[in-house]
């Protein structure tokens, strides 16, 4: 199995007429890395994948695989293999022919192909099923055949276009682990496209979050979650509460935002350091699990926020309280279920607390739409 090679996008733009699908993408993916593009549908992530696989030429900029500029090199000649969203297995060929189609193209003998098919079938735990037809397999099995077919081409880079989106939740979670294990085993570069942040965060070494053709942030999952670079990233990845307002006071690392729920002191996001000034429109983001009920809590760093209770919701492992800020903006607070019996009258005021280090301030900007 070949070792992974790096993929570089250098100032890549893709335009369809007047529509800009990808704007100024600069990405450097290291060899052997599991790299994800995360974003809502229509954000241009599939277009990026197609520029890497060669089905789409960039309007501007350069795609390099292993340092080689790929301009003018067709998808059949690139060292990439693509796993399609709908898998695109060949329904009229038995499984083993599906898997070894790339070898057939290279002119390998039937014996060689059968042998390789058996090896790959073992890798995907489908031993002895090579003579079945595609429609005789279950969704997860088809998924694994698609992976085997792509791996059989011995690509340097494996491209995956939301391959798990058609599976049910349980299978999807199982396949996450399996994909990650296969990637570790074969050691090649994986580029993964998804709109599911859970998939992106659990599997990837690095994630690029995209919105409307622009890459907002490239970082590891932890950084994306804890230190988002834009309001879009903050609101798209995981759940987040938004507290909008003007900056009241500011120091090097912290700023106080005058929000409808009260003054909120928060850490300035790394990407926003030096870009904020007193009086600027800003947004502070606090995760539902970082909020607590203030009653009975003491601490110097803790913010006090007031809001009116809307509804409560019991979710099993957690207990959620939904509140409204004075301007109507919603707050979700998520408390670990410890057997407490909360019964709060809708409409009554509640004071919440949160730590300044668990809140992030960014310049005001577009949020991810629900």
């Amino acid at each position, binding site marked *: 199995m070949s070792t992974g090679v790096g993929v570089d996008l250098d100032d890549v733009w893709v335009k369809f007429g007047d529509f800009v699908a990808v704007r100024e993408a600069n990405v450097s993916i290291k060899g052997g890395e599991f790299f994800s593009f995360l974003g809502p549908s229509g954000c241009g992530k599939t277009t990026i994948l197609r520029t890497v696989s060669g089905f789409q030429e960039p309007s501007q900029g350069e795609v390099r695989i292993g340092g080689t500029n790929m301009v003018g090199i067709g998808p*059949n000649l690139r060292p990439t*293999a*693509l796993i399609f969203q709908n898998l695109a297995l060949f329904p009229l060929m038995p499984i083993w022919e599906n898997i070894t189609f790339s070898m057939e*193209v290279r002119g390998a003998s039937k014996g060689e192909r059968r042998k390789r098919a058996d090896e790959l079938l073992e890798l995907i735990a489908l031993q002895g099923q090579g003579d079945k037809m595609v429609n005789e397999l279950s969704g997860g099995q088809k998924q694994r055949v698609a992976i085997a077919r792509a791996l059989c081409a011995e690509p340097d880079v494996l491209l995956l276009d939301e391959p798990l989106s058609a599976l049910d939740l349980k299978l999807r979670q199982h396949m996450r682990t399996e994909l990650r294990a296969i990637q570790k085993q074969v050691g090649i570069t994986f580029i993964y496209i998804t709109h599911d942040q859970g998939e992106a965060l659990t599997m990837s070494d690095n994630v690029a979050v995209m919105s409307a053709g622009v890459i907002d942030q490239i970082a590891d999952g932890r950084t994306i979650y804890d230190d988002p670079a834009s309001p879009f990233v903050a609101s798209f990845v995981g759940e987040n509460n938004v507290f909008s307002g003007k900056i009241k006071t500011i120091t090097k690392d912290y700023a106080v935002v005058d929000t409808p729920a009260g003054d909120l002191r928060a850490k300035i996001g790394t990407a926003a350091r030096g870009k904020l000034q007193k009086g600027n429109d800003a947004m502070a983001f606090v995760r539902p699990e970082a909020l607590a009920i203030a009653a009975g809590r003491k601490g110097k760093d803790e913010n006090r926020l007031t809001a009116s209770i809307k509804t409560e919701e019991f979710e099993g492992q957690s207990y959620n309280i939904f509140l409204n800020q004075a301007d109507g903006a919603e707050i979700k607070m998520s408390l670990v279920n410890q057997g407490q019996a909360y019964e709060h009258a809708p409409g009554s005021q509640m004071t919440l607390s949160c730590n300044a280090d668990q809140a992030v301030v960014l310049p005001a900007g577009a949020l991810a739409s629900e």
Partner: protein
Amino acid sequence: MKGTFFKEFFNRNGPLLGTYLLLAVAFWIIILIVLPQLSMLDYSFRFNLPPSAQGGEKDVYTMSNYQHFFNGSEGNPERLSIFGYQTDIPFNKVDIAVFFKTILAAIFVTAFDLALCYPLAYFLGQSASGPSGRVLLLLLIIPYWVNEILRAFAFRIIFGATGVINTVLVGVGILDTPIDFIRENVALYAGLGYAYLLLMIFPIYNAIESLDRNQIEAARDLGSPWWRIHWRIVIPFAKPGIVSGCTMVFMLTAGALAAPQILGGPSSLWFTQIIYQWFNTGGNWPRGAAYAVVLLFICIVFVLAMMRLFKVKMGEIGK
């Protein structure tokens, strides 16, 4: 079992619509398909008798019409020879030669139409999408709003000595004298090929249109050159459409009458023209019926053999 089928059928459609549907289907099957073929078959086994003798004691079943197709009329000097070995079986060389020429020509026309229509159907089904694709389809259909016989005459004009093609070729200087396309049967084959073009395009187009474009991209991504994508992905997928188109074009070409009558050269004879002569000028309906049955039977056997060769099931064709 039968009873429940009709009961459910009427429950679903109501008594009025149910009765109408059943009658319409029965009319179609019995009156339009079974009875004409049966009466043709019946005719083919009878003597050609004047109306007064029909139903009389002389009106019995006979193989004589089929014998005529193989042996010719009495006193036919031709004898069948098998691999150079001369037998004394009389042999209807003229009719049988025309028969095989017709079948061969129909195969040729079918192959020609397939070669012409597959790329077109692929382009329409996979590349031309949206309004431009629909305009192209309409452009294909419009010429067929003109009657088949008028189209044949149009081809006669196009391929005539002073037609467009000869005028251009002579005008440009490629030819000194016009080619007699009619005598050379070029006009006939072109006319036949054109006559049933749509019946080849549409089944293939329908099949290819439903092919997931990702299949083609996946094959390409796995390194496949274009010819192999067609050979391994597109053609197997379109096979029912291809077989359906080929069957229709072959059957209709072998049974065509207007194009051979109008576009055929002076020395060309199509088997349907012989059948037509027996019915019309020959006034021998039983013999014409026997010839028609031979043509139909051999064509069906040929099509079934081809389907077996290319491993296509009957049920797939209707798709």
